[in-house]
């Protein structure tokens, strides 16, 4: 893993889409996770947002996020299918090869694992012609899948080659899951790892977890779980994880500060992880090329 394996998330930054992309690039990053709202919220329309991403010279880590998709029936299911197809189309337009799907928090969602798995398989099949991978992420406050072990079970059950897992360090740390459990994964099943830290240590209610997840995340190395994060990244590296890390930092303070300031903090986090925690400064030969070709 090198610096280039880490990317920022447009949802961490304030300003126009162009300003966010420029800040990410200026901080030295080569990739960026795109929040769909940043594209469609472009003042000159979606096409202008798509063009801004295409022109940014940044690789798209993925598009986020399809929410509350699985476990629905009847009209709700068909409505969500339309939403999913629109998200996949947007992902394709910006040159993305990954769509992040968050486990449902909807009270309408059926939690029957067979139904959840069938819905995710259908979504993955829909994404195949575009060459888009589906990273399914459990949420600690989800109704259908609330831990990465459960997410793996569903992904296994769905059994589609372009369906894998998104792992968010926040959920791992906040849920108090043992890092030993990461051993259940095969590295090729993990499609994306999102990293962030936060500022409290005690166990909190699901409501407080949700509030923290949305408002108070900080970059790795800035919070109180630096050791755990370092441990997590080291374990994933040993496991053979070879895809992207994205800083999923959602923080109200950062969203009212200049994007360059925030991007530089992200840069420090990437340098710390790549060069201190993983102690690798030099790119692995051929890795970039493999990535570009869509192999990795």
């Amino acid at each position: 893993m090198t610096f280039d394996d880490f990317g920022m998330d447009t949802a961490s930054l304030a300003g126009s889409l162009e300003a966010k992309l420029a800040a990410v690039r200026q901080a030295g990053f080569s990739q960026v996770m795109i929040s769909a709202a940043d594209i469609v919220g472009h003042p000159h329309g979606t096409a202008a947002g798509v063009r801004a991403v295409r022109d940014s010279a940044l690789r798209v880590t993925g598009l986020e996020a399809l929410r509350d998709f699985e476990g629905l029936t009847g009209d709700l299911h068909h409505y969500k299918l339309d939403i999913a197809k629109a998200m996949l189309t947007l992902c394709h337009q910006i040159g993305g090869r990954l769509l992040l799907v968050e486990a449902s928090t909807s009270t309408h969602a059926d939690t029957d694992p067979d139904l959840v798995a069938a819905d995710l398989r259908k979504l993955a099949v829909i994404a195949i012609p575009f060459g888009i991978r589906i990273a399914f992420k459990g949420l600690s406050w989800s109704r259908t899948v609330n831990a990465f072990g459960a997410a793996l079970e569903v992904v296994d059950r769905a059994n589609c080659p372009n369906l894998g897992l998104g792992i968010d360090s926040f959920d791992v740390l906040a849920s108090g899951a043992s890092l030993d459990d990461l051993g259940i994964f095969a590295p090729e099943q993990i499609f994306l790892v999102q990293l962030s830290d936060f500022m409290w240590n005690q166990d909190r209610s699901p409501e407080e977890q949700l509030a923290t997840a949305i408002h108070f995340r900080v970059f790795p190395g800035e919070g109180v779980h630096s050791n755990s994060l370092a441990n997590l990244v080291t374990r994933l590296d040993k496991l053979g994880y070879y895809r992207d890390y994205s800083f999923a930092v959602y923080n109200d303070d950062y969203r009212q500060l200049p994007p360059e300031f925030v991007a530089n903090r992200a840069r420090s986090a990437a340098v710390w992880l790549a060069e201190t925690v993983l102690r690798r400064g030099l790119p692995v030969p051929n890795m970039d090329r493999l990535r570009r070709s869509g192999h990795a």
Partner: protein
Amino acid sequence: MTNAMDREAVPEAQNPLAIDGLEFIELATSKPRALGSVLEMMGFQPVARHRSREVELYRQGSMNIVVNANPADVPRTVEPIERPVISAFALRVRDANLAYQRALELGAWEIPVRAAPMELNIPAIHGVGESLIYFVDRYDEFSIYDIDFRAIPTVNPHPPAIAGLHFFGIVQYIGPDRTDDWVAFYSQIFGFTPLPDNVRFGIMPKGLLLQSPCHKFYLQLVDPGDPAGDLLWDERLQRMGLGTPDILAAVAALEKRGVEFIASESVHSNERGAMTKPYLGSVMFELVHSDHAPQPAPKARA
């Protein structure tokens, strides 16, 4: 790939769309005459024209090829281009609408309806790249061509096949490391079965074969090989495979008509197969030895 196999174990899923062969292959081009002369050299004859669009039907034996030179009103991204592309294939199914609905339920993308008044609505889904997959259920007593096409007067509507040529399959180019994805796509939605690597037809060494659930044709997935190599291509339908019980007789007959075959050290005609040179920059035909009885010519066609 294991998932494809697992699903095959479920009997009712073996042919979820009730597929019964290939009805036609569509090529899109802005130079329909140039493509027409290549097709005629290959033994196809123009037999009908579409009533409202710049679309022609070529036929040889049981094979139908639709040449689409229709400009912008077609609501899809393949504009006819100079280099012909395989823009669609049509599957024969028991009930086109049911097959279409079932395909959507299984994860296919719908294509907006584009029939003009008095024309058939032929449902279609997205295939690889910009291509489409149509569902056709009128191929027995009636055909789609009876309604949407006008026969070209004085030509034999059922020109015979040279050396028993029939549709064998279609070769699809895929991106690096995309074999599993496309196997999942074709097995999940259509019920195709991947064949073991030691099953080979023809003379081309590469690619994974998928057998149609009706056992009447194949799709072959070919990836660029070395993922770190510079040979990257767009995913697309690349060429059609024509089966014949006698390759050498077919090659001889086609050569007499002016068709040239590749004769290199690695690729050359033999009793197992042959490959034509590319015409118009992109149109190739692969001949494959196949004892498959050609499907009977339909009765009441254009």
